[in-house]
């Protein structure tokens, strides 16, 4: 994990080679927010719970972004053709990585960015299912119940992100992040393949699309020198 984080930090700061520009890259604010879409959706669902907080720090046109959240996914299905099937997965996750902002507006601090994320989830999952469901009733063996339960599982993935954050009022921002998630290998060792990885979503393929919708607030703690004012004074 430390190797991933090191590479991401290296990517973030690869363009800071000049010591004289340190002031230019000094952070000026922290933006903290919450994910609204999944959280809102989970308020109306008994089988899905989700919350996520997001924070970023600016370094000139670069941001270091950190997300931390929780997902719980439960499905009890008695509608399937054969037997029955219950599944539950829940756990916490984080993402960390850099963004590069392509908008340079000192007044609004709006963001249109591309970025990378390393994601990691620690979760538990369990399943109960009928053997009739597992082999579609194509057996002469009597129906039996199979159970699977495992805790403290770790899943890792990478993301390529496109983000938009727009100021709507003073320091309040609305943000949209489109994620392309890539699962590098199997989610874990073992005979039962993970179906829902918190933070990543359903593992139907090795990659997955996601979308987050943020409401965030920017806390400025340092005003950057505005060079055009200095030029005016010289005149």
């Amino acid at each position: 994990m430390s190797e991933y984080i090191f590479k991401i930090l290296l990517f973030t700061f690869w363009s800071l080679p000049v010591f004289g520009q340190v002031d230019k890259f000094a952070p000026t604010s922290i933006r903290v927010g919450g994910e609204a879409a999944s959280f809102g959706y989970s308020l109306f669902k008994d089988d899905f719970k989700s919350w996520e907080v997001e924070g970023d720090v600016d370094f000139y046109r670069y941001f270091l972004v950190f997300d931390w959240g929780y997902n719980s996914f439960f499905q009890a299905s008695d509608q399937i053709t054969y037997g029955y099937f219950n599944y539950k997965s829940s756990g916490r996750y984080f993402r960390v990585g850099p963004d590069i902002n392509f908008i340079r507006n000192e007044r609004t601090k709006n963001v249109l960015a591309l970025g990378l994320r390393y994601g990691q989830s620690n979760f538990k999952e369990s399943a109960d299912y009928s053997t009739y469901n597992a082999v579609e009733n194509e057996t002469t063996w009597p129906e039996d119940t199979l159970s699977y339960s495992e805790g403290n599982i770790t899943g890792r993935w990478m993301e390529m992100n496109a983000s938009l954050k727009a100021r709507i009022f003073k320091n309040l921002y609305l943000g949209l992040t489109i994620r392309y998630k890539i699962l590098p290998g199997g989610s874990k060792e073992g005979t039962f393949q993970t179906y829902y990885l918190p933070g990543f979503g359903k593992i139907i393929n090795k990659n997955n699309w996601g979308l987050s919708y943020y409401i965030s607030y920017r806390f400025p703690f340092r005003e950057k020198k505005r060079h055009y004012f200095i030029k005016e004074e010289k005149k």
Partner: protein
Amino acid sequence: MKIRIFLLVGFSCFAGLFACDVEDCISTKTGGLKVEFYSSDRDTVYLVRGISAFSEGNEPKIIEESDSLFSIFPFDLDPASDSTNYNFNLIVEVNDSTTASYDSLYFHAHYRRNQRVISVECGVEQAFNNVEITDHNFDSIKIVHPNIERFDTLNVRVYF
């Protein structure tokens, strides 16, 4: 106005992504180990006229002497265990007018089970992989396909 457009585009994308979340409800896995019977000289495929297959805890799988001959028989592996024992009696057609009976044949199959959730609507599918015949009373056996697939024609050849 900008904010309205932002909200509209955002929620449209969100709805669009959920709309694309369609899962395929098809399993290619099955638990029937398909066995073909050969003469010990490996030249002749036996056509089976009848079979009685028994496994402890299982419903016997019996095909009485039938007019339609077959050469491949699926032995259902225990979906709740990593191994299955079968005892079976076999009636094969030697030529057009002669049959031969083989009684008290047996084999012990060991395998690895892997489960995957297809979707919450379809449930879980179980794969039977790495099949090995660890004990038997045939002359010899050959594993053709150790991972059982629904559309496989054959998994094991038995010579006796």
